[in-house]
């Protein structure tokens, strides 16, 4: 009987250790790793993954000055082109939810970006995705003007859809 209890204790300890062992990597793993979803459009990126991971900020900064000041609008390294391919299928955006392409890594690396204070996070032609954008707001405004009445935000959203 004593032996049986001892065996049971050994088994339980081993099980507990195994359980603890299985749990250990998750505890020491730190923050959850970023989710990197393959781009929706396009076969491959304009440069290798390694290059883009290290240098995307440099090429984007360079491109932005050329585009704004000189009017050079080449597509390689343009932020609009990044968004075109990398916008998530779920949200249609690169920065709307925490798993979206840009946000996913940037929140993991704790690097705050202000690109999307000004730039749209969605590709061209995704009007349905912003029900309150100026296009639909303007459309609602026109409707309201012809009807001679004010229109609510909910109604505007409906009109956009």
């Amino acid at each position: 009987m004593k032996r049986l209890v001892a065996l049971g204790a050994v088994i339980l300890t081993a099980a507990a250790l195994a359980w603890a062992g299985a749990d250990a990597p998750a505890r020491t793993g730190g923050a959850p790793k970023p989710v990197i979803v393959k781009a929706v459009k396009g076969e491959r990126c304009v440069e290798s993954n390694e290059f883009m991971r290290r240098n995307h900020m440099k090429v984007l900064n360079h491109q932005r000055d050329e585009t704004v000041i000189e009017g050079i609008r080449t597509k390689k390294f343009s932020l609009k082109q990044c968004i075109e391919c990398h916008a998530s299928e779920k949200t249609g955006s690169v920065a709307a939810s925490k798993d979206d392409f840009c946000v996913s890594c940037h929140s993991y690396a704790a690097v705050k970006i202000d690109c999307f204070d000004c730039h749209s996070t969605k590709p061209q032609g995704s009007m349905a995705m912003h029900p309150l954008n100026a296009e639909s707001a303007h459309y609602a405004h026109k409707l309201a003007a012809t009807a001679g009445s004010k229109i609510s935000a909910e109604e505007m959203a409906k009109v956009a859809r």
Partner: protein
Amino acid sequence: MNTMKQKSSENAQPASAERRRFMSVAGATAAGLAIAPGVMLVEVAHGRPEDQPASSAVRWGMLVDSTKCATGCNECVSACSTENGWTPVAESKHPKQAPQWIRKLELQDPLTHHETNLPMMCQHCAEPPCVDVCPTGASFKRADGIVLVNRHTCIGCRYCMMACPYKARSLVHENLHDTQKPDVPRGIGCVESCTFCVQKVDRGDGTTACVEACTAAGHNALVFGDLNDPESEISKKLREIPTKEVRADLNLNLGVRYHGI
């Protein structure tokens, strides 16, 4: 040795003469291209490849014929807000501080009661006061004469708004919550104004949203084009009809000219 030298110089003589002839022909051809600016400048203006910078061979400008500008018509303003993604002032929660890239003015002579309609926007000065006063260099004039704000360096101090004699600039006071157009980035804390639809110009459309809307509405009060090209529609019109600059006394050499004011 001497004879050889002689020979070689003899050889050189006709060759260089030929070269001179060739050069003069080439020069004439080049001059011919320059003389026919209809061909060359239109190419520069409308077919600029996307990897080429904007060129100072072009100067974009607009002609507003206020005699054709209709009372109560707001097509140009709506088209601008749709193209560039700014909320119409009537829609805004804070109309007094709402951004406004173009606005319609209705003026009346107090003596004769004659009414004049015209759109007012950035006049795209050749000597822009907004560029003079900008402390960070964010307000700048592009090579093709379009006056823009580089939002990457704008700190929102609003000196340019005070310097502008045309009240053409606005500050974005509120977060836009990702309602911007992909082609037209704009955001909180930055000054903005009419860009002559720079995204359309760079695409090679050769026109702006307000001009398209005015033409579509059948008023034809607006003409957009290259002021440097003597064969462009706008240059021909400017030669034909008398036009004025608003506040011509400031000597800013405006890109927007008005007829009938």
